């Protein structure tokens, strides 16, 4: 049976060139980057070089790049770090209802610690209205955090426009660019952001390593105290192979993104059009402001987990926003925020394409899904053919 991986928003395979770049730093060049001997110098050089590569892609200074242990940590550091460092200046934070849990749960925690959080709504396509950000800003707002591209429905937010607005206030602006790095322009000046999170494993790098960009002059407290690593913003012996892998992966995906995006958009649109021929199907998210690799649809009258199980039996890996697939038994907060009723959110399917996805994969999936939907609908008490 063929195996088709269509869950690239969850994670991606490490590219061979990336793995190759990492390998020496596991064994031969294993030195701790903080020492004075030759092993350390090699490690230090590798980390410095990786930092330069990342800084260049972001249009940032090397000293503004903080390596972390992934997207969740970067989001936590940005939000808690700014909240803590600025708590005497204000305690109000603005975010959106469709953020990743790494942002939302951090905000919920801060609410319990005495901060006030405004969760901006989104429209039916999942877009935040920049004028709503403007209206929500207060003299005591210390942070605005809005994601660049949504991980479930792929909607791309007007970050540059929001950034312009936040710039005129005292607040700092963070964006979670975990889904957009390596895909979209993430130049921090063009986006007008002060903080930006990204994660290597979403862009064909290793798991457990990420970046938080911190604009010079931004007040931020560390989450992890210890040694003087990362200019005292993140203690801990550097994950040298991980950092090298992150930089290599970002370098490759960023350089090739225009060509790859054009390829993916063709496949994505073919998939969306094919799925739309199934009756009672709706496409979630914006059709124009959308990540090149994201397809998200709802098939009415069926439930997502049974869809995923059947797809898995036929070799296809995908994901769903159904309540039954979430550990909390709540349907996707993103789909609900976009105004979808509970029972429709239940039948959602996310297919996220990647570098390995071919036209033949799309054809296979387009042949399988209608049959699966029909079979599950025949079993559904809600469906009348």
């Amino acid at each position, binding site marked *: 049976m063929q195996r088709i991986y269509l869950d690239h928003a969850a994670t991606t395979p490490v590219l061979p060139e990336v793995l190759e770049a990492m390998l020496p730093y596991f064994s031969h060049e294993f030195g701790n980057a903080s020492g004075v001997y030759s092993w350390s110098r090699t490690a230090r050089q590798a980390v410095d070089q990786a930092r330069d590569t990342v800084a260049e892609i972001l249009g940032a200074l090397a000293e503004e790049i903080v390596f972390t242990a992934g997207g969740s940590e970067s989001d936590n550091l940005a939000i808690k770090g700014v909240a803590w460092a600025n708590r005497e200046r204000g305690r109000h934070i603005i975010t959106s209802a469709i953020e990743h849990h790494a942002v939302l749960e951090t905000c919920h925690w801060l609410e319990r610690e005495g901060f006030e959080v405004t969760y901006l709504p989104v429209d039916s396509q999942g877009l935040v209205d920049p004028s709503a950000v403007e209206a929500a800003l207060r003299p005591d707002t210390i942070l605005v955090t809005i994601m660049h591209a949504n991980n479930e429905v792929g909607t791309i937010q007007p970050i540059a426009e929001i950034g312009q607005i936040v710039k005129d206030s005292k607040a700092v602006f963070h964006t979670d660019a975990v889904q957009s790095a390596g895909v979209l322009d993430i130049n921090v000046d063009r986006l007008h952001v002060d903080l930006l999170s990204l994660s290597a494993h979403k862009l064909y790098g290793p798991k457990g390593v990420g970046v938080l960009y911190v604009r010079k002059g931004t007040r931020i407290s560390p989450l992890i105290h210890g040694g003087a690593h990362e200019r005292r913003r993140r203690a801990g012996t550097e994950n040298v192979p991980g950092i090298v892998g992150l930089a290599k992966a970002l370098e490759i995906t960023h350089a090739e993104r225009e060509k790859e995006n054009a390829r993916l958009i063709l496949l994505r649109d073919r998939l969306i059009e094919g799925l739309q021929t199934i009756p009672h199907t709706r496409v979630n998210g914006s059709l124009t402001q959308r990540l090149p690799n994201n397809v998200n649809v709802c098939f009415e*009258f*069926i*439930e997502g*987990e*049974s869809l995923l*199980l*059947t797809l898995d*039996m036929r070799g296809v890996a995908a994901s769903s926003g*159904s*309540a*039954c*697939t979430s*550990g909390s*038994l709540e*349907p996707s907060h993103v789909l609900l925020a976009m105004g979808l009723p*509970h*029972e429709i959110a*239940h039948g959602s399917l996310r297919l996220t394409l990647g570098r390995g996805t071919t036209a033949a994969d799309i054809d296979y999936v387009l042949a399988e899904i209608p049959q699966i939907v029909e079979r599950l609908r*025949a*079993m*559904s*008490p*809600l469906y009348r053919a």
Partner: protein
Amino acid sequence: MYSEKVMDHFQNPRNVGEIVDASGVGEVGNARCGDIMKLWIKVEDNIITDIKFKTFGCGAAIATSSMITELAIGKTVEEAEQITNKAVAEALDGLPPIKMHCSNLAAEALHAAIQDYRSRNGLNIPRSQ
């Protein structure tokens, strides 16, 4: 995460469908995740001779629906009424803890169908509380 038995019943669910001249119908919704199951029974001489279901729910919900139809068929109404969600889960070689509530759906649908059969036939026995 599911046992082989669950996957078998999910892949090849037994007794899917509806019974046109059913003796009783039960429809229940799952308060935890919003899923729905509908179950039809045919009762002859106090014995469940036919049973069919339709389920809008996860793999566990479909498998427990299928399993409960197998457990109930051929049983007297009183015997069928004794089938608990635990018994269904055990017959499937267990369910992941987070999926235990799905088996309630099947048990409740069966009990609702039996209740419907009784009320249609004036067989309602006062429940001892």
